[in-house]
C-alpha cells in the first residue's frame, strides 16, 4: 500500500478523541495494544488456515518451515508488510499528528475533498 493511501486508511473521524483514564497516555497505549491484539488474531487465523491446508494435503512438514530462508524478493515483501503493520498499530499517534497539522493549516491527510 502506498504511504498516502495508508494514511488515508488510518485517518481519524472528526471530533475530539475521548480519553477515559486519568492520563491520556494510557488511552493511547491501550489503543496500540488493542490494535496489536487484533493483528495477532489475524495472524493466528491465517496460520490456522495454513496449518489445516498443509495437513489436509500433506505437503509441508514442520521442519520445512523452520528451515525456510526468504530470498531477497520475499525479504523485501516482508519488510514492506512490517512497515504497514506498524503504521496500523500506531494509528492513534498518526491521527493526533494529522489533527495538529490540520490545526496549523498544514492540512491533515484523510479529510474529504468536500469538507
Amino acid at each position: 500500500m502506498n504511504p498516502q493511501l495508508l494514511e488515508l486508511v488510518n485517518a481519524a473521524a472528526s471530533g475530539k478523541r475521548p480519553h477515559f483514564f486519568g492520563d491520556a497516555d494510557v488511552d493511547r497505549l491501550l489503543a496500540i495494544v488493542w490494535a496489536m491484539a487484533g493483528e495477532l488474531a489475524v495472524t493466528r487465523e491465517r496460520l490456522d488456515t495454513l496449518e489445516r491446508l498443509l495437513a489436509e494435503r500433506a505437503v509441508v512438514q514442520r521442519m520445512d518451515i523452520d528451515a525456510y530462508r526468504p530470498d531477497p524478493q520475499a525479504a523485501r515483501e516482508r519488510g514492506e508488510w512490517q512497515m504497514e503493520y506498524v503504521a496500523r498499530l500506531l494509528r492513534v499517534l498518526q491521527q493526533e499528528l494529522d489533527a495538529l497539522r490540520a490545526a496549523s493549516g498544514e492540512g491533515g491527510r484523510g479529510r474529504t475533498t468536500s469538507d
Partner: protein
Amino acid sequence: MSAAATHDDIARFNFLANFNKYMATAVAPGNAVAFRERAEPAWIRQQGEAPQTRSEVRRAMAPDPHYRFWSALRRCGMEMRQQAGRSLVLRQKESLRDRARELNARLPSGLRLDASIKIPRYQSELDNHCMPGSYYAEYIDADVSAAANYDAGMFATTTGLFGRYLDGAGRGTAAWLQRTRPGWQPKRILDLGCGVGHNTVPLARAFPAALVVAVDLAAPMLRYGHARAVGMGVDNICFQQANAEALPFEAQSFDFIYSTMFLHETSHVALRNIFGEASRLLAAGGVQVHLEQPPYRGMTAFEQFMRDWDGYYNNEPFWSALHETDLPRLLIEQGYSAEAVFETEIHAMVEDEMPKVGVETEDFGRGGLWYACGASSQGAST
C-alpha cells in the same frame, strides 16, 4: 456489490465481531457490578444519596477502572472497525466504483442523483459514528467507498443481531405490516434515510408490486445501494438523493412511509421537518412508522447512562436528545389524533443461526428489538 476481501480482511472483521460480542456479553455487564459495588457506594458516601440522573451516574462511574477499560476498549473497537473497513475498500475504490457503475447502468431509472443537495450542518459537522469522512467523502469521481466501508463493517459492530444481510429491521417491519394489515398491498412506499438500502430491500421484496422510493442525502450510499439492489435482483426501488426535510414529492403520494435508524442522526428542527414531510406525503388510509432504539423514559438512571454511551463517545450528537424526545407528541403536533398515533415493538427478523436479542446478548444501544412509533392516516385506503 461488496468489496473483495482477503484472508486478513476477513480475519480482522472476525476478530472485531468476536471482540464486540465478548464486550457485550462479558465486559459490559461488569459495569452494573462496578456501579453497585464501587461507584454508587462511593457517590453515596460523598453526596449522601444515590445518583439520581444519568449524568450523575456518569460522574460516579468516570473514575471506575472497569468502566474506563470498557469504554476505552469500546472506542478502540469502533476505530479499528473503521480502520479495517477503510483498509479493505480504499485500495479498491476504483474497481468498486466501476462495478457500481456497471450495475447501475442496467437500471438507470432506479438511481436519481441531485448534485444541488446541500449537506445540513447536523450531518456535516461531525463524522457520524466515528466514520472518517462520514457518508459523504468522495475521494474519486463517483466514489462508493464510504458506502462499501459502511456495508463491510456493519456486521462486525452488530455481531449478527441485525441479520446476515443487515436487513432484520426491514424484514421485521414487513412482517409487522403483514400482521397488522393482512392482505394490504401498499402501491408506493417511501424509505427515509435509506443508507445503502439494507432495510429497503426487504420491503421491496415483501411487496414486489409496489414502487419503493428510497431517499438519502449521500450520493455514495445511493450509488452503492442501487448497485447492491440490482445485484440482488431487486428492481422495484428508486434510490433518490434528497433531504428528507424537504422532499420533491406530491402530497399524499405514498401509502407506507418508514425509517430505520435514521431519526437519531438528525436534529430537533430537522426531526420536526421530517415528520412534517412524512405526514404531508402520507396518503389517506396509509401508515408511517419509524424504528429507533427505545426511548429513555421509564428506564433507570443507570440503564439510560449505559445506552447513552454512543451519544458521548461515538460521534452521535443527537442520540441523547432523540431518546428523550416524545415522538408520539411530535406526530400529534402534525395533526394526527391521539388514537391515530401508536408506539410498538418490532423484532428484527434474523436467520436462525444468528444470535437473538435477549437470549444471547443485549449490547446497549444496538439491540435487535426496535422501538417503533408511527401514525395511521384516516380515510379509505386507495
